[in-house]
């Protein structure tokens, strides 16, 4: 009797509506979070590339944007917030700044699904430019209020430029990953 029950359970899993539900595949659901965390950690390594010396690209921002757009169920508010918090901890900046910015980016990107899903990559790239600029603007404003000082915005703009330039390199594998996760690939 037992084997039969197991069989019926697994067939139910197979019938699932495209989303992995049970057992081992639940690990697959953590992949976007883990990949994003690795990207956040990479963003704080002392890489020492001459031209990237002053600012490192915001890899975490790319991850939050791409996953919020492709799989908002796997990049919920709390995950974006948590990734921002880790970024703040690593950078030593105001605790909560990046957390709020990532939360905003997650909400913004997830709300643009209808507009952006299925469009050419270039359009997605352009949309990311807007998102990155908005994120930099908001974090610059928060930083100015936090430090009660006029913070030089050049570094923030430089970071936007570097991040936007590297966007295709980082986003392409993330897109591939989220495409595989949509549908049957992981289920």
């Amino acid at each position, binding site marked *: 009797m037992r084997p039969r029950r197991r069989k019926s359970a697994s067939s139910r899993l197979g019938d699932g*509506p495209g989303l992995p539900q049970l057992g081992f595949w639940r690990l697959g659901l953590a992949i976007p979070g883990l990949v994003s965390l690795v990207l956040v950690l990479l963003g*704080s390594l002392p890489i*020492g590339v001459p031209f990237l*010396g002053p600012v490192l690209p915001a890899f975490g921002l790319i991850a939050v944007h791409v996953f919020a757009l492709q799989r908002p169920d796997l990049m*919920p508010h709390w995950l974006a917030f948590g990734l921002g918090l880790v970024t703040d901890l690593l950078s030593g900046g*105001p605790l*909560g700044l990046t957390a*709020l910015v990532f*939360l905003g980016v997650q909400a913004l990107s997830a709300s643009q699904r209808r507009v952006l899903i299925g469009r050419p990559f270039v359009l997605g790239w352009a949309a990311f430019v807007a998102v990155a600029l908005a994120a930099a603007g908001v974090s610059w404003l928060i930083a100015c209020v936090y430090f009660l000082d006029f913070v030089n915005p050049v570094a923030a703009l430089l970071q936007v430029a570097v991040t936007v330039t590297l966007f295709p390199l980082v986003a392409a594998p993330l897109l591939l990953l989220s495409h595989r996760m949509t549908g049957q690939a992981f289920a």
Partner: protein
Amino acid sequence: MRRSNKPLASRMASPMGLLFNRFAFAFLLALGLTLLVAGRSGIGPVEQVRTGLLDLLAPVLDVISRPVAAVNDLATEIEQLSRVYEENDRLRQENARLLHWQAAARALERDNAQYRRLLNVRARSDVTYITARVVGESGGPFVKTLLLAAGERDGVEPDQAVVSELGLVGRITEAGRNAARILLITDLNSRIPVMLEGSRRRAILSGDNSGRPLLAFLEAEAEVQPGDRVVTSGHGGMLPPGLVVGVVASVTENQVRLRPFVDLARLERVNVLRYRRPSLVNDRNGP
């Protein structure tokens, strides 16, 4: 991406899910703002929590930064290999010049020791080093900090000076058990009492997140030119005096900027100075 998003959409659109989603968003927004306010005003245990979490993250960074450091070393080696002849020639000349200086320094050291004995001068406080690996940097546009794979366990404490073989890097602002954070001299919040090495005029080295920190509060009559060396003055007692910091890079009517000796973007190992601050009480080192 175009394949079956239906179940997802229906799940997201369910009234309960939507309500929960909105509540979570509002809650996290409030939490973020609270953290910012608490962190700014020092209310609550934000600092302690922060240092604790840093301790947890540092070992992870320590591991993943090792291959990065190896690649960096390789890149530097290749870069150096291409200039090895030119470099060799330059070093030969420099060596000849330095040998001359060494003789001069030895003579001066001998004289100095003699005068110190004669005058019964109090010896400078002992400075010892803790060498540690840099495992992370802020990377963000608003702060300039580094993470160090050494903490209180190794004797690192807040306010200690951090130097590389070329000069001052910054000072420790946070120290966990096995990790610490260095505030670089270029950070917006960094203020270091310094002086011009030649004229002994004092100033405050004030970071503004750019690569060229400002020399603020320099006396108006002080004569300063690009190329003047700047060292720590030791005022305030936090840093030992005489640590080299950099050279004056530019002098304009209302601001003097400094070029640090240390390439702050390419640090792999640094020394944390354990400096016993001079104090009026409990002074056992008197003459």
